């Protein structure tokens, strides 16, 4: 088997979308050559494509949102005074609303350390915050432009 034949064969596999499977045993040098000659230029071309770059960025932001939501849910669940947390994402910034019950000062004392941990965990995101008592968030309450519920305390079962 000549090296040119192997490269062509692997190139056919790559073109068919078979880039995730491990290279066959004994073909690693050929695979390295294929990567240098075929895969890397392909990835570079994709990265230079604005549509692909936008999709990659959107995917990254989606992952980050999921991580923020996970941290918020975990931390808020450990604070009995936090009823719900809403988030309003706008261009890499997030405005958070903590709805708390009981004494507002105590609710702030529960929510603000979470804000500090969020900033430490996600330094590239600018976080804004507001903390309101549940009594001020009635059925007609509106907040933010496109708010998403990031955490809601589960009702105690009867």
């Amino acid at each position, binding site marked *: 088997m000549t090296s040119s034949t192997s490269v062509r064969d692997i190139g056919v596999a790559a073109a068919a979308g078979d880039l995730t499977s491990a290279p066959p045993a004994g073909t690693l040098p050929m695979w390295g050559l294929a990567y240098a000659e075929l895969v890397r230029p392909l990835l570079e071309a994709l990265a230079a494509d604005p549509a692909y770059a936008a999709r990659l960025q959107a995917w990254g932001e989606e992952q980050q949102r999921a991580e923020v939501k996970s941290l918020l849910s975990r931390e808020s669940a450990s604070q009995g005074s936090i009823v719900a947390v809403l988030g309003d994402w706008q261009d890499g*910034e997030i405005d958070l609303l903590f709805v708390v019950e009981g004494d*507002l*000062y105590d609710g*702030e*004392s529960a929510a*603000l*350390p979470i*804000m*500090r941990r969020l*900033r430490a965990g996600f*330094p590239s995101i*600018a*976080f*804004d*915050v*507001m*903390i*309101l*008592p549940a009594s*001020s968030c009635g059925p007609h309450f509106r907040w933010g432009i496109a708010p998403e519920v990031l955490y809601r305390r589960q009702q105690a079962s009867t």
Partner: protein
Amino acid sequence: MNTIAQHLEKARHNLAFLNTMDVGDDTFADWAIVVLFYRALHLVSAVIHSHGRDHGTTHGQRQPRAEAVLSPAAAQSYERLYTRSRAVRYEEVTSTAREFERLLKSDFGPLLREVQSRVPNAA
């Protein structure tokens, strides 16, 4: 506003306004809290400048910079004043003179003392 002196002057200006308010009455407790926050904002901005840094233009930018130069307790007190001032301005949250006093003693007071230990002439 870019200098420590300018921020300290603005903080003194806000203190002068606060001194004209009847903070023992519930009527304008919400506005007293707002003015107290803006006094804190300029004090914290002065500390950030004293470290040779810029405070940014939004809370999302200023708060992490405050956390970088203040103790955790002082940074949390500052953010409490921020979020409370935001709440009383925009939502149906009533405030009382007692709440103002609590914020003044439990949060602004310790914050001011920390600022004064770092920036001379802060008031």
